[in-house]
C-alpha cells in the first residue's frame, strides 16, 4: 500500500511526536490496522449524523431533517431540527456524565469497603483530606478513627447519586455569585443519577421538545458531573491513594523497556492500577521476572489511568488515546491491562498480531478476545499479582525480530493538584491573583480532552499550549491534552523559555513549568475548585475571571459534559472539533452567543489552534477589562 517514503510522509501526517511517527511507520509496515485506517474506511461519514439532524431514538425512525431547509423538515413524531439536535446533544452529554460519575461511584464504594476492613491492599492515604472533605459533609472528625470518618463520608457521597436533599454537597464549593446564576436559571444539580435519568426521560419521544429547556437540563446534568461525579472521583482517589505532589517522570512510547516485562495500564480508574503498582513491588514477582529472562518489570500508563499513576506515583506514561494500538505495535508489550472508557474494541485484534495479552478487568467492560480477570476490592491485590504473573509468563514469547522501541523518553513534571498549587503559592491564591492583576500572568486556560484522527495527533494541544504561553497565559491541563504536552516537552520548567517574558519570570521564580499537569479527565474538577477559590478570594463569580477552556482534539462523549460544565460555571470554551449541532441555527446561536447573557461565557468552534488562542486571549482581555485590570 505504501512505499517507504510514503510511509514516512503518512506517519508525519498522522502524528506530531517523532516516537509516535516511528511506530506508525512500523504499524504500516507490519500491516496493522489502526484507528487511522478505520477512519479512512469510514469516509465519507454521514452528514446527517455529523450535523446532529439524524434522530434514531424511537422505532418510528430513524428520521433525518434536510439541513438545507427543504423537506423533510420534521421527524415522524413532528420533532423539528432544534428539538432533534438539542435532544441528541443531551443524550451524548449524559453518556459522558454517566461515565465519569459511575467511575466516581466505584471509588467511593472501595472507600467504604476499605473503611469497613473488607478490601484487600487499600488504605486511607490522605487523612488530612479525608477530614477536610468530611467536614464539608458535616461529619464529625474529632477523636474518631479515620475508618469511622471514611465510612460516614463514603455513605454521604454515595447518597449524592440518588440524593433527595435537592443539591449536591460539593457544588457548594462554587462561589455564591456562580451559584446564584445556577439558581436563577434552575440549573443547580440536584443529584448525580437523578439528572442523568431525567435526561434519558427527556430524550424519550414526546417529552421535552423545547430546545432551550433541553439545553438548560444539559447544563444541569453537566454540573452534576463536574461538581458531583467527577469531583467525587478526584477527592476519593486522593483520600485513598494520596493527593498528588509535584514529581518528575517520563513520557512517550520510548518509556517501554527493551529488556524488562512491559505492562501497559490503560483506561481510567486508579482502583486496579494502584494495586498493580503495589503488586510489582512483590519480591517474589521480581524474582520470577528474572527467572523468565527479564531484567525486571516495567509499568507504564496510558490515557487517564496513566495520568492517575503519573500524578501520584510517577509511573511513566506511554501515550494518549491514539497510542493504544501503537504501544502494542512496538512488539514489546507483554500485557495491556484495561478497565474502561476509551479502550478500542480493536485492541485484541492488534494484540493478536504480536505476543501481547490483553487483560480486561471490569464487569462493565468485557471485550471478546481478551483474558478476563475480574477485579473486586476484596481480592484486589491478589488479582493484581496474578495479572503481573501472566505478563511475566508471556515475556519469553516476545519476538525480538519484531520489536522496535522508538527514540528516547521525554522528561515530564506532573502532580499539580489544586492543594499543591496553593501550597506552592504560600497557602493562598493571593500571589496568583497579584500576578494576574499585575499582568505577569494574563489569564489561565485549561486545555483538556482527547485525540481525534481528524487532527494530527497532539498538534492541536501542543500548538495551542505554545501559543498561549507565548502570550503570558498560564496553561493547566488534564487528560490526553496533558500527555500530548508531556511528549512535546512542555511539562518541564525549562519549557518556560517558550513562554512570554512575564510568564517565564513567574515560572522561573516558582520553578514550575508553564503548562501544569493537573491530572486525569475527572480531575478537571481540580480546575473548578481552583477557579472557585480564586473567585471567592475576589468576591466575584467564576464567569468574571480571566479564564478559558479548550478541547482542541476531543472525540469522547465525556468531553461534552466537561465543556458544558466549564461553560455553565462561567468558563469560555473553544472546541477544535465541531460538536454534532451544526444542523440547528438556534442551538448554535444559543451555545455560541445566547449563553453569554446567562453565564458570561460561551462555546466557540475553532480547529486552527492559533486562531483558538486569539479567541481565548480576546475573551481573557474582555474579562480583565471588566474587572478593571
Amino acid at each position, binding site marked *: 500500500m505504501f512505499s517507504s517514503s510514503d510511509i514516512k510522509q503518512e506517519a508525519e501526517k498522522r502524528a506530531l511526536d517523532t516516537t509516535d511517527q516511528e511506530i506508525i511507520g512500523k504499524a504500516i509496515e507490519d500491516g496493522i490496522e489502526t484507528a487511522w485506517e478505520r477512519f479512512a474506511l469510514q469516509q*465519507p461519514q454521514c452528514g446527517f449524523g455529523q450535523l446532529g439532524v439524524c434522530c434514531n431514538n424511537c422505532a418510528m425512525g430513524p428520521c433525518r431533517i434536510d439541513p438545507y431547509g*427543504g423537506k423533510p423538515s420534521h421527524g415522524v413524531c413532528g420533532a423539528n431540527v432544534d428539538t432533534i439536535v438539542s435532544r441528541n446533544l443531551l443524550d451524548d452529554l449524559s453518556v459522558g456524565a454517566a461515565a465519569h460519575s459511575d467511575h466516581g461511584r466505584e471509588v467511593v464504594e472501595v472507600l467504604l469497603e476499605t473503611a469497613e476492613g473488607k478490601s484487600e491492599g487499600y488504605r486511607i492515604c490522605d487523612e488530612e483530606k479525608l477530614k477536610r472533605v468530611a467536614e464539608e459533609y458535616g461529619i464529625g472528625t474529632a477523636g474518631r478513627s479515620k475508618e469511622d470518618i471514611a465510612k460516614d463520608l463514603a455513605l454521604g457521597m454515595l447518597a449524592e447519586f440518588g440524593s433527595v436533599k435537592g443539591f449536591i454537597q460539593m457544588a457548594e464549593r462554587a462561589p455564591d455569585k456562580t451559584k446564584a446564576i445556577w439558581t436563577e436559571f434552575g440549573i443547580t444539580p440536584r443529584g448525580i443519577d437523578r439528572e442523568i435519568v431525567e435526561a434519558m426521560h427527556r430524550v424519550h419521544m414526546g417529552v421535552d421538545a423545547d430546545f432551550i429547556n433541553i439545553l438548560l437540563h444539559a447544563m444541569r446534568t453537566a454540573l452534576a458531573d463536574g461538581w458531583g461525579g467527577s469531583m467525587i472521583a478526584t477527592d476519593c482517589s486522593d483520600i485513598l491513594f494520596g493527593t498528588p505532589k509535584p514529581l518528575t517522570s517520563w513520557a512517550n512510547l520510548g518509556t517501554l523497556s527493551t529488556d524488562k516485562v512491559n505492562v501497559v495500564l490503560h483506561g481510567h480508574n486508579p482502583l486496579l492500577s494502584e494495586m498493580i503498582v503495589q503488586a510489582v513491588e512483590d519480591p517474589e514477582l521480581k524474582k520470577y521476572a528474572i527467572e523468565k529472562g527479564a531484567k525486571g518489570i516495567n509499568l507504564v500508563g496510558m490515557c487517564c489511568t496513566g495520568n492517575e499513576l503519573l500524578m501520584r506515583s510517577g509511573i511513566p506514561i506511554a501515550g494518549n488515546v491514539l497510542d493504544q494500538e501503537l504501544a502494542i505495535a512496538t512488539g514489546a508489550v507483554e500485557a495491556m491491562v484495561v478497565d474502561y472508557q476509551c479502550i478500542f474494541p480493536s485492541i485484541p485484534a492488534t494484540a493478536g498480531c504480536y505476543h501481547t495479552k490483553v487483560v480486561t478487568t471490569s464487569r462493565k467492560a468485557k471485550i471478546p478476545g481478551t483474558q478476563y480477570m475480574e477485579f473486586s476490592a476484596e481480592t484486589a491485590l491478589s488479582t493484581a499479582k496474578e495479572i503481573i504473573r501472566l505478563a511475566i509468563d508471556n515475556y519469553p514469547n516476545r519476538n525480538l525480530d519484531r520489536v522496535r522501541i522508538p527514540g528516547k523518553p521525554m522528561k515530564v513534571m506532573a502532580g499539580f493538584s489544586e492543594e499543591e498549587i496553593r501550597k506552592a503559592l504560600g497557602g493562598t491564591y493571593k500571589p496568583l491573583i497579584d500576578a494576574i492583576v499585575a499582568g505577569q500572568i494574563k489569564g489561565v486556560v485549561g486545555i483538556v480532552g482527547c485525540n481525534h484522527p481528524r487532527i494530527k495527533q497532539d498538534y492541536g494541544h501542543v500548538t495551542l499550549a505554545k501559543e498561549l504561553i507565548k502570550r503570558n497565559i498560564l496553561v493547566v491541563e488534564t487528560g490526553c491534552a496533558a500527555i500530548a504536552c508531556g511528549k512535546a516537552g512542555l511539562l518541564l520548567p525549562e519549557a518556560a523559555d517558550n513562554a512570554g517574558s512575564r510568564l517565564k519570570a513567574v515560572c522561573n521564580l516558582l520553578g514550575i513549568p508553564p503548562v501544569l499537569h493537573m491530572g486525569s479527565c475527572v480531575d478537571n474538577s481540580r480546575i473548578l475548585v481552583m477557579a472557585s477559590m480564586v473567585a471567592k478570594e475576589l468576591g466575584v463569580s467564576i464567569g468574571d475571571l480571566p479564564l478559558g477552556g479548550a478541547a482542541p482534539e476531543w472525540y469522547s462523549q465525556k468531553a461534552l459534559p466537561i465543556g458544558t460544565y466549564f461553560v455553565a460555571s462561567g468558563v469560555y470554551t473553544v472546541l477544535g472539533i465541531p460538536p454534532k449541532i451544526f444542523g440547528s441555527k438556534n442551538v448554535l446561536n444559543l451555545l455560541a452567543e445566547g449563553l453569554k447573557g446567562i453565564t458570561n461565557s460561551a462555546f466557540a468552534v475553532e*480547529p486552527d489552534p492559533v486562531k483558538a488562542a486569539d479567541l481565548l486571549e480576546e475573551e481573557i482581555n474582555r474579562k480583565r477589562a471588566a474587572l478593571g485590570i
Partner: protein
Amino acid sequence: MKTVFVRQDRCVGCRHCEIACAVEHSESKDLFQVFTEEKPSHPRIHVESVDNYLSFPNRCRHCDPAPCMQVCPTRALSRDEATGSVLVSYTRCIQCSVCAMACPFGIITFQQVRQLESDREVNAKCDNCIGRLSENRIPACAEACKTGALEFGDVNDLIKETRADLTMRLIRSQGSDIQGPAMPDNIRAYKAVMETIANL
C-alpha cells in the same frame, strides 16, 4: 430527457443512496435480508469523499452516445429507447472490462448478479431503476436522497433551477437586494470548520 441530476454541494455523504441502490437491486428488496442473500447486491452508485468532508455521488450518466455501448465487442450494452437507459445483458457480457476503460466517469463495477446462475462477475452498472420507471416511480437513489443532491426530473428543468440560482447570485454580487437560494449560514459555518481541519 429525464435524468438523475447531481448537486454536489448538497451531498452530505450519508451514503443512503448506496444502500437504497443495493436494496433495489437485491432479490428480496428488503434492507434486513439483502446482506444474507446468496449473491448479495452491491451499490451501483458510489459516494466518494475528498478531505473527509466533501463528497460526490457518482452515478451512471446514461450517456448518448454511450462510450461503453460503442466499445462493447459483444453488444452486451443496449439502450432502452423509452427511458434512455443504458442496460446490460448479463449473459452477453464477457468480463473484458473494455466498457469500464471507455467510461468517462469510472462508474462501472463488476459483480456477481442474481440474474445469472454462474458466479461470473459481470458489468453490474446502474440500470436507471428501469423497473421503477415503468411503474412511474423515480430511481431508488434519488428517492433516498433527503438533501436534494440527487434529483430526478427533466434535465432542462433541473438545469434551469441551477441557472436561476446562478443568476440570482450574480445579480446579488452586483449589489442587488435580491437574495438567491443560498446555502444556510449554519451549514456554511460547518463546512468552513471542516475545511479548516482539512487544511491544518
